Each structure stands twice: as C-alpha cells, then as structure tokens.
C-alpha cells in the first residue's frame, strides 16, 4: 500500500472519529485526542502533529467552528464545535466506511480475523 493511500485512509477515518466525538459536545484539541485514545483502547492515537492540521482543515471546510473558552481547570482552550455542515457529513461518512469494511470483509474476511 502506498504512503498516499495509507494517508488518505488514515485521514478519512480520523475525520469520522473527530466528527463523531464532537457530535456529543464541543471539545478542545487535547481532549479530542485523549477521548479518542481512551474510547478506542489506544488503537487510534492522535499526536499534536496529526491532530491540529486535520482540525484546521475541517475548520476551513466549515465542518467545525472554534472558539476560546476556559476549561474545567480555568485555562483558556480552543474548543471545537460541530457546525450544521459538519453534522451533515457524519451519515455519509459512516455509510462510506461501512461500505469500505464490507468490501474489505468480502475480500479478506477482516471481520472474522
């Protein structure tokens, strides 16, 4: 698999992971990375270098909107909130990933692996 294909798959799955997480409530970067790591048992892991370019790109596309707000510890953090456009991306992305895994399953039985 080429680096380009790997990176597109990773980017696509990361977008869905972030959108799904923000569906519940606005979160700031570190919290997004922490919760994704925690909820996936460490399988998906964001670093600063992989997270922020993606968040900025999603912001540019109008999927998320950011604002500064104090967190529970009283420190200012940049919170990301899902926009209506971002919310509309979730269902098609989920369908696409379901289709992707069905295709992989048909090819190599990944769900039984």
């Amino acid at each position, binding site marked *: 698999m080429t680096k380009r294909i790997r990176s597109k798959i990773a980017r696509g799955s990361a977008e869905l992971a972030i959108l799904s997480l923000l569906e519940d409530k606005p979160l700031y970067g570190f919290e997004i990375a922490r919760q994704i790591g925690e909820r996936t048992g460490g399988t998906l892991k964001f670093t*600063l270098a992989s997270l922020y370019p993606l968040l*900025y790109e999603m912001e540019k*596309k109008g999927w998320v909107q950011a604002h500064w707000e104090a967190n529970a510890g009283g*420190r*200012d953090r*940049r919170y990301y909130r899902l926009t209506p456009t971002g919310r509309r991306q979730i269902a098609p992305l989920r*369908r696409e990933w379901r289709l992707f895994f069905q295709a992989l399953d048909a090819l190599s039985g990944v769900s039984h692996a």
Partner: protein
Amino acid sequence: MPDWNRLVRKRMSGALKLEPHVMEEVTAELAAHLEEAYERARAAGASERTAIRQTLQEVVSWSDLRAEIRRTRSMEDGMTRRTKLLWLPAIGILFTVGLVLVIVDRAPALQQFIWIAVFGLLFGAIVSEGKNLNERTKRLWLPGFASMTAASMFLFAASTVADPSRFFTQLSLRPQSVLHVEPGPGLTFYFSWIIAHLVFGGLGAFMSRQAGGTRSARVFAAMFPALTMFLLCGIVIPISALAQHNLFVERHPMTLIFGMMIWAGIPGIALLAGAAPFLSERGRTIPL
C-alpha cells in the same frame, strides 16, 4: 516546567507566513496542548526529564508540521501556478473576444468556436485545481458542470448543422406539434438531444460517484442540465413574457407548462435514466 509557548514559537517561526494574530492563536493552542501532555505525564509519575521527552514525541517533524499548518491555516489563494499563468489568461482573452463579437454581431461561427473553447478551458482549469477543490465541489458542482457542459456542447455542435433555436421556439409555442411534427432536421435534433441526455446524465452521476458523492449528490449532478433548463423555461421566460405583456403567452399560459415539460421534464427523465446505473450503492467506488 519548560516554557512551551516559547518552544512552539521558536520551532514554528521562519517558514510560517501566517497573519500575526493567526500565528499567535496557533502558538497558544499548540503550547497549551504540549503543556497538558507534559502535566499528564508528570501526574502519571514520570520524571521531569521523561515527561519532557514524552511530550516532545508529539511532534516528530516540526518542518512537516509547519508546512501542514501553513497549508491549512493560510488564507492564501490556493490556485496553482498553471491555473494563474495559463488557464485564467486564456479564458479571459477568449471571453473578451467572444463578448466583443457578440456585441458587434460578427462572425457567428467564430463565436461558437470561442464559447466551446471557453467551456473546455474552464473545465480544464477546474480539473487542474482538483487538489484544491472542496468535497462538495468534487462531488456535486464539478460533475454537474461536466454534465451541463456536455449538454451545451451538444447544442453548439447541433447548431452547426441545423438551427435548434427555430425548433426550440416552434415547439415551445406549439408543444402539441411534437406529436405530429413532420420529420426533418428539427425533429432529428430534438430526439437525438434527448437520447444524448442519457449519456450526459450518466457522466454527471459517474463523476459524482467516483468522487464519493452520495446518491442525492449523484442525482443532482446528473440532473444539472435539466435544472438549468427548468430555471430558464420555468422562471426566466415566464417573467420576461409577463414583463413584456406577451399577448400569446397571456392567452395561452399552458404553453409555458408544455414548454417546461419538453425542455426540462423530458430531458430530466432521460438524464435520470442515464444516471440510474450509477445510483446503486453496490457498484459505488470508494476513492483511495
């Protein structure tokens, strides 16, 4: 504890050419992230040295990060050099020449050639900007534009052998005549135009599907030529007829509805039929 703000500012400076307030914001946000990662590592029992090392592992290559942040936070025009130096000037020159010819009403054949070339160049420019296009443009507007360009090209090409506008007017004013119209170039044009819509619809839906478009995006992309004709026949022509107090239209309002059926409804059905093979989720391609 290290001064994370200073560290980020130092590592991000130089290659980043962002607006100062954006730079401030990015620095503050990244520094806050590193600070929290460091504190978490310390709270988990790591020594200061280990915590710093773990925190710095958040960024393997600062130069890659600078490039990525510049790409995503910069408000610079994302157009490629080729588009700026080749496509846009060519489109501008041809469009101006075409417009002048329309105004002075000269060289109709050259005018047609120019408009076809402008459409072609515009399409080339959009394709060359592929990487800069957002998802909606790739999945909806570009395929829709392709299917509309194909339909317009067909009209231009047809007009070199016959004058479709005469048939257009005749059929719009007397739509019932389509049932007993005499064979000739007009009828041949209309039916070949409708049949060609199967291909245009297929093209729009196919392109949208290749870009990962949803079923509704594929339908919209395929139906684009019919939607344009609907706007023309259903809104522009009726409003202009009413504004001009067109007596014929005022006495025969059903003509407008028939006109819409013939120029938007029937082509719309043909477009949808052409798109049908590309609407199934089973054959959908996931672009990698």
